[in-house]
């Protein structure tokens, strides 16, 4: 990067750390530190909810997903408006009435301490694991952009976020989230405009849509019902409804945002902001990824966005790689020419010629990636490197620093919220609840700051251990899916099943998780027409694939928890009461 970009990046990062740190000065109690004295305006809490969700993964993972596949991922968010209605109507007034610090605190009154500890413990486990991935994602990008080792980048991001979250508390988190959201949105809008300014003069927005549509990249809605398909309208509306209800209604990273507001109405308004804005925002980001694909039809694109140097180790490998590169370049030139002809003539034959050239180019690209994988024996998926490559090679000096700061900001806006939520759950649901000797507010305040640092260290270490795995965006959702549905099931029992007992909720929760595990390990072979169950440590034959995709695990967990919870409660009702 140019020194101007370094300066902009440095100044913005220092400003974020300073701004976050100073917000915690007034906090003299854990309510002030962890809930900002319940005094935050609704719009600030609402923007913080959005910033927490819009992480660096949104920046790089979602654009990469649209580039390599299509826009179907947007369907995951279709359930948000419906989920928000249910949360605003039922959960928000409940939390407000109980004046709780955490989502899990309210469970103790009905279902006992064990259920509270189990649900909060699952939160600590799942979010603690996911936090490593949230730090690792932007670190990949920044290590590429800045030429830093991956491990050093992870340590820098983890340290900065931990420092201002430790000093600033939730007020610091929310105030910095607002600024971080603004920087991130500026970066996205700027890149969108830049793409169009770099297209050939005779290629307009309609032409870009025509080319993307020809390539089947504008599929935003898939009506096919298939449990083994990751993204379709059914999984997006019904299965993801359970995920969104659990995420926004029972996950402390989100619940804590609206617990900082002063009234039920403010808490509802903050959530409805996400209901209005989240889906259009995701659509825009995915469209940006598709437009990047169109951009690289007319501009030079590398065969791999990740490796710029040949990886061949033998002469034969070098020859194969050279041949692939020649095929790729020839197909790329043909694709550009046929694209221009397809735009001008809009005939089926020209469209087919363009599609054939695109397929030839992608065949060469896929073959090269496979060759790289076989030589280096590592993951060579470059999905998360496409947008960073664009930033590095196309964005002008000065703005690069701002966008890199935006990626930093997006990462930190998610990390800070999670550090703060993990601290709140650990202090309120575990430490303060189980502490036998009385302690002062000052003691808990000091402990909260110490625990924030501890979580920051754990998160950074888990990010270092995580290394590079498959597309991070899916990994995080998968981690959540193992617990989310079952925890939601406990809240369903709490709100709507009067007969539910502590024993029912506790066993129901375990049963829900067991059901999720069972369905997750269920595989199907189309060739053999056979369903088989494979344990995590057993090898899955190539002909088998997952029978049920991860979004559907959420309703499985909720339904199993509710059914088993109700049954156990009714069977032992007399004894328990």
């Amino acid at each position, binding site marked *: 990067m140019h020194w101007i970009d370094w300066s902009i990046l440095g100044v913005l990062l220092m400003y974020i750390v300073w701004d976050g740190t100073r917000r915690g000065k007034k906090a003299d109690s854990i309510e002030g530190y962890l809930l900002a004295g319940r005094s935050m305006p609704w719009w600030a809490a609402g923007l913080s909810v959005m910033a927490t969700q819009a992480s660096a993964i949104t920046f790089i993972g979602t654009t990469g997903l649209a580039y390599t596949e299509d826009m179907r991922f947007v369907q995951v968010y279709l359930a948000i*408006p419906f989920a928000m209605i249910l949360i605003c109507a039922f959960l928000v007034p409940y939390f407000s009435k109980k004046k709780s610090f955490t989502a899990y605190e309210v469970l103790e009154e009905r279902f006992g301490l064990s259920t509270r500890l189990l649900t909060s413990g699952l939160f600590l486990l799942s979010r603690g694991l996911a936090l490593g991935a949230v730090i690792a994602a932007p670190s990949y990008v920044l290590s590429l952009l800045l030429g830093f080792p991956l491990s050093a980048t992870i340590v820098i991001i983890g340290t900065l976020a931990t420092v201002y979250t430790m000093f600033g508390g939730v007020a610091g988190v929310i105030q910095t989230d607002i600024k971080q959201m603004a920087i991130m949105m500026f970066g996205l809008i700027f890149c969108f405009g830049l793409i169009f300014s770099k297209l050939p003069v005779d290629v307009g927005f309609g032409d870009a849509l025509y080319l993307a549509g020809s390539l089947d990249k504008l599929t935003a809605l898939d009506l096919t019902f298939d449990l083994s398909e990751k993204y379709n309208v059914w999984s997006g509306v019904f299965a993801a409804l359970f995920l969104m209800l659990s995420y926004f209604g029972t996950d402390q990273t989100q619940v804590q945002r609206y617990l900082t507001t002063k009234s039920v*109405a403010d808490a509802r308004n903050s959530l409805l902001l996400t209901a209005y804005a989240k889906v259009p925002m995701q659509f825009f980001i995915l469209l940006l990824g598709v437009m990047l694909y169109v951009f690289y039809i007319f501009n030079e694109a590398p065969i791999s966005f990740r490796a710029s140097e040949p990886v061949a180790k033998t002469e034969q490998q070098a020859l194969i790689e050279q041949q692939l590169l020649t095929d790729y370049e020839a197909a790329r030139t043909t694709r550009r020419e046929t694209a221009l002809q397809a735009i001008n003539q809009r005939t089926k034959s020209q469209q087919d010629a363009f599609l054939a050239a695109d397929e030839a180019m992608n065949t060469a690209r896929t073959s090269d990636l496979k060759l790289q994988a076989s030589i280096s024996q590592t993951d060579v998926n470059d999905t998360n490197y496409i947008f960073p490559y664009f930033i590095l090679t196309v964005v002008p000096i000065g703005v690069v620093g701002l966008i890199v700061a935006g990626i930093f900001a997006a990462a930190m806006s998610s990390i800070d919220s999670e550090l703060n939520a993990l601290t709140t759950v650990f202090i309120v649901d575990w430490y303060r609840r189980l502490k036998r000797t009385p302690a002062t507010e000052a003691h808990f305040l000091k402990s909260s700051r110490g625990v924030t640092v501890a979580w920051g260290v754990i998160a950074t270490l888990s990010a270092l251990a995580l290394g590079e795995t498959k597309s991070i965006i899916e990994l995080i959702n998968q981690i959540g899916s193992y617990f989310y549905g079952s925890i939601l099931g406990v809240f369903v029992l709490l709100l709507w099943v009067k007969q539910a007992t502590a024993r029912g909720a506790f066993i129901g929760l375990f049963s829900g998780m067991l059901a999720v595990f069972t369905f997750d390990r269920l595989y199907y072979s189309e060739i053999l027409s056979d369903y088989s169950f494979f344990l995590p440590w057993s090898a899955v034959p190539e002909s088998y694939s997952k029978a049920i995709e991860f979004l559907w695990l959420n309703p499985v967990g909720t339904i199993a928890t509710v059914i088993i919870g109700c049954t156990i409660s009714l069977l032992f009702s007399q004894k328990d009461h």
Partner: protein
Amino acid sequence: MLSNTFTTLSYLFALPENSSKNWNAIYLGVFLLGLLFIAVFWWFTSTYNLP
């Protein structure tokens, strides 16, 4: 200033602060918005996705 802007917007969207709101009407609006998103994406896909 930011606070005032958002408060003004909340009035424009019939979400006045510190007054009794018809939450059921708001929920109906959000529900219809959710359906609108689905309809728009269906239209977008069927209009622009060509194969």
